[in-house]
């Protein structure tokens, strides 16, 4: 199949950037989107031109490294699919595809379609963990978790941190990501002790990184390749409110321990 690609080319953060048009005439319907770009890049290298930079790693849809916007859809128009797992059979001969990077202040452009998503890592560092005592292994069933809670937690844990929610959000908010991480840990007994302080510190980090706020538009959940739902943002809000109402600087001097 033949495609016309209009790809955002930008040399770095300071460059203005522009769309450059490429006619790509040897695209196989069996290729993934990224393989299609690999073939384009080989041709560009052969011609002595600069290849198109884009993020990728596992190419199995599980690492969260890839992602750009195809014709206005983060990760392309196929639902529940990362762009590395999007296959060219979903497109048609003669299609014009415009590729843009995920755009947000918190995601500076490194080059072309490649962006820096470390802001999401810093949100995780602010509280996306549980503090547990290391030691001898526990009996597997010593902490009971209900099936529904465990399933819901796993739904939240499906987030791969690709940033498509930020890309799709008219407010460039990472609330679905942050809510997903807060829910995934907070729904389980192991995450319960730090549930409220986690919400406080992760939401604060989220804001400090320059993401916008959630206004319940719902574009994030539509774009999410892992199907996270707005329920997790409600849970983030609830935990944040509870954390604000019950916050203590310090419980006491630490008792006799």
């Amino acid at each position, binding site marked *: 199949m033949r495609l016309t690609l209009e790809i955002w080319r930008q040399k770095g953060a300071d460059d203005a950037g522009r769309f450059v048009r490429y006619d790509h005439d040897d695209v196989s319907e069996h290729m993934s989107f990224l393989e299609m770009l690999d073939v384009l890049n080989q041709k560009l290298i052969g011609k002595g031109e600069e290849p198109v930079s884009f993020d990728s790693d596992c190419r199995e849809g599980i690492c969260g490294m890839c992602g750009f*916007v195809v014709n*206005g859809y983060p990760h392309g128009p196929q639902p529940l699919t990362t762009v590395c797992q999007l296959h060219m059979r979903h497109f048609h001969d003669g299609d014009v595809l415009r590729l843009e990077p995920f755009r947000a202040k918190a995601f500076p452009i490194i080059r072309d379609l490649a962006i820096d998503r470390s802001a999401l890592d810093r949100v995780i560092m602010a509280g996306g963990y549980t503090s547990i005592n290391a030691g001898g292994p526990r009996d597997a069933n010593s902490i009971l978790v209900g099936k529904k809670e465990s399933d819901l937690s796993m739904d939240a844990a499906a987030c791969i941190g690709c940033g498509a929610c930020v890309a799709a959000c008219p407010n460039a908010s990472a609330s679905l990501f942050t809510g997903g991480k807060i829910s995934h840990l907070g729904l389980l007994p192991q995450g319960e002790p730090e549930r409220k302080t986690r919400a406080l510190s992760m939401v604060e980090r989220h*804001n400090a990184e320059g*993401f*916008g706020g959630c*206004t*319940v538009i719902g*574009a994030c959940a539509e774009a999410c390749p892992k199907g996270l739902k707005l329920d997790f943002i409600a849970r983030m809000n609830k935990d*944040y409110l509870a954390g604000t109402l019950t916050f203590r*600087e310090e419980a006491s001097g630490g008792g006799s321990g």
Partner: protein
Amino acid sequence: MSVATASTAAPAKVSRLSVFWDSQVGKKFVSAVTGVLLFVFVVGHILGNLQAFQGAAKFNAYAQFLQNTKGLIWTTRIVMLGALILHATAGIQLYLRARAARPQPYRVPLANPATVSSKTMIWTGLLTLAFIVYHLLDLTLGAALVHSGFVHGDAYLNLVNTFRSTGKVLFYGVSVIGLGLHLSHGLYSLWQSLGFRHPLWTPSITKAAVLIGVVLAIAYLSIPAGVVAGLIRL
């Protein structure tokens, strides 16, 4: 010896209230609570004003009752002013923050499936704010600038006079449709901001919000329409 714990603690020595207000979650909470107060007023206001269809005597008696019940009217005014200031400030700040969060716009517009009402909250909100100012000048204060021939104490006459002007009918009409749109998203979204979302209730809340928005817009439109159609006349 105390057990070393990883610090998930939020920054100390700051007022929790200011941290709360500074965060987007806190602003949305304030927005939701004040939005509920404003919504209650919007419902009460139309229920009272629909008495215009019952004639001048009834309507003016209602207006007189409100004027005479100082406690009620001033409590309402003060609470509404406070709620409005907080609601508008939170909304405008969230909008500015969202704009700052994406300094470089998409060159190809996002193909997102969101509802019109959710994406236009700031505009329907600002329209409502402008409308409130105008409406107060027009029919509460009777400022000569916007309402010539205003008679203090004859609310019915003033109402009919206002809707004899085509321009005012159009502005009032567009404004209450904007308010209806604003409510059809706000009445759903406020639950999310308060942290409540549930598969049993949220689908019904979403539909109810749209229904209430439409019903209120129609109810508010009925008054200028009633004047135009001659059902409310001197």
